[in-house]
């Protein structure tokens, strides 16, 4: 999986590319947690999923774990532009009730949520 994660203000915005299963779930978890450990000011994580055609329960477990970690910080996990398969398994698992879902992600959404650069 290709993960391009950057810190923008109090958020991490990570563009993901590839299918998410047990082969790369650890990679995603470590990538996000590394930034969370590095910057205590981070509250929210946005995973941009345009290029994630598939996720299974191994991937969902990573999302649930990050959700809980962010909740402890008073922050939230957002999934942007999920594919139909990703949305479906998120709904069936109940995860869609916990995390924020953006159907039409636009970087300006960050500003609207009060997240600014710097």
């Amino acid at each position: 999986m290709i993960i391009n994660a950057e810190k923008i203000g109090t958020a991490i915005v990570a563009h993901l590319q590839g299918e998410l299963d047990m082969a790369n779930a650890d990679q995603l978890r470590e990538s996000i947690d590394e930034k969370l450990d590095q910057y205590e000011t981070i509250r929210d994580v946005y995973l941009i999923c345009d290029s994630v055609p598939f996720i299974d329960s191994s991937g969902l477990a990573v999302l649930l774990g990050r959700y809980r970690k962010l909740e402890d910080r008073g922050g939230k996990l957002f999934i942007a532009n999920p594919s139909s398969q990703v949305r479906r398994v998120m709904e069936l698992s109940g995860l869609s009730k916990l995390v924020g879902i953006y159907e039409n992600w636009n970087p300006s959404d960050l500003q609207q949520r009060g997240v600014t650069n710097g």
Partner: protein
Amino acid sequence: MAEGNYIKVEFPSLPENVGFSRALVSAFASQLNFTLPELDEIRTATSEAVSNAIIHGYENKMGVVTLEAEIKKGVLTIRIIDHGKGIADIDAAKAVQYSTIPGRYGLGFTFMEAFMDSLDVESELGKGTSVIMTKHPETVCPETGTA
């Protein structure tokens, strides 16, 4: 119609083979008139069954996973077989949010049951586990009246 067609593949219990197995089954299943959402369901169920074989059956140690798929009377049957530790309590394992490993979601069997027409689990402690799933296309062909 690929009536009577089948595949049988063996591969080591490596995480990288989870993606391979769902791609393989999806390509095979495409010989029936499954819709794209149905193929997504088949891919998800296969991914969960093979992940279970690797994580729970072999506990991430090396073993051989056998994947079989066949088309009979318009129905797709998938078998995922491991020769790992087996499941002590199949009903408990199928329960929602049940997992013997902390940090896992415990939704594998839930997805398999939700996405396939049928799910059978045969297991013997110390011998291994077979997961057998079937699915037929919901869309009825207007010309033949069959799926």
